[in-house]
């Protein structure tokens, strides 16, 4: 049982880290703002959730567990809301998503999904 929990939490930690890493690569490499927020906004939530659940399985007493649950709730709420707010503010300020017709930045690359 102990072994099983360990393995499970390791898997969760590893996959969470992997998601975070992909998100960061996206943040660094994607061509414009909206693709970047797409990359990080989703992987952030996923990665954070996986890592925190992985840690929860390792929690030694219930207070740690509860605190981790609180962090998870907060990050689920806050990360998604913050991303939404940033994207909305950017859109309102006149930042255009890069589409097929509108690619003034680095036009030689193929646009990724908006």
């Amino acid at each position, binding site marked *: 049982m102990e072994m099983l929990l360990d393995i499970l939490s390791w898997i969760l930690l590893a996959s969470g880290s992997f998601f975070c890493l992909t998100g*960061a690569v996206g943040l660094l490499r994607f061509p414009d703002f909206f693709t970047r927020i797409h990359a990080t906004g989703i992987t952030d939530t996923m990665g954070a959730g996986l890592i925190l659940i992985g840690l929860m399985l390792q929690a030694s007493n219930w207070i740690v567990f509860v605190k981790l649950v609180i962090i998870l709730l907060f990050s689920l709420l806050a990360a998604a809301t913050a991303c939404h707010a940033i994207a909305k503010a950017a859109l309102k300020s006149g930042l255009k998503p890069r589409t097929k017709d509108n690619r003034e930045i680095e036009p030689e690359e193929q646009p990724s999904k908006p």
Partner: protein
Amino acid sequence: MYILAAFILLIVMAFALIRAFKGPTLYDRILAVNTFGTKTVLLIAVMNFLAGRQDFLDIAIVYALINFISVIGILRFFEYSTKLPLDEDL
């Protein structure tokens, strides 16, 4: 295992930092700050287990809260400032 996770999180934070330095628009920077903050929360949670002390999770909670508040603050103060050109002249 914890060390691996912490290491990857550090790499992620470095990436976010580079984006915050480069960030062609201001929103890229805000996004980078946000990402950086969430990753710091995770890093502290992992570090909590790495160090073997169970008291550090409070700090992670504070980080999650403060990060949210500061992102909202940046947005709010930026949104209502006068119409500024999007691209910064760096």
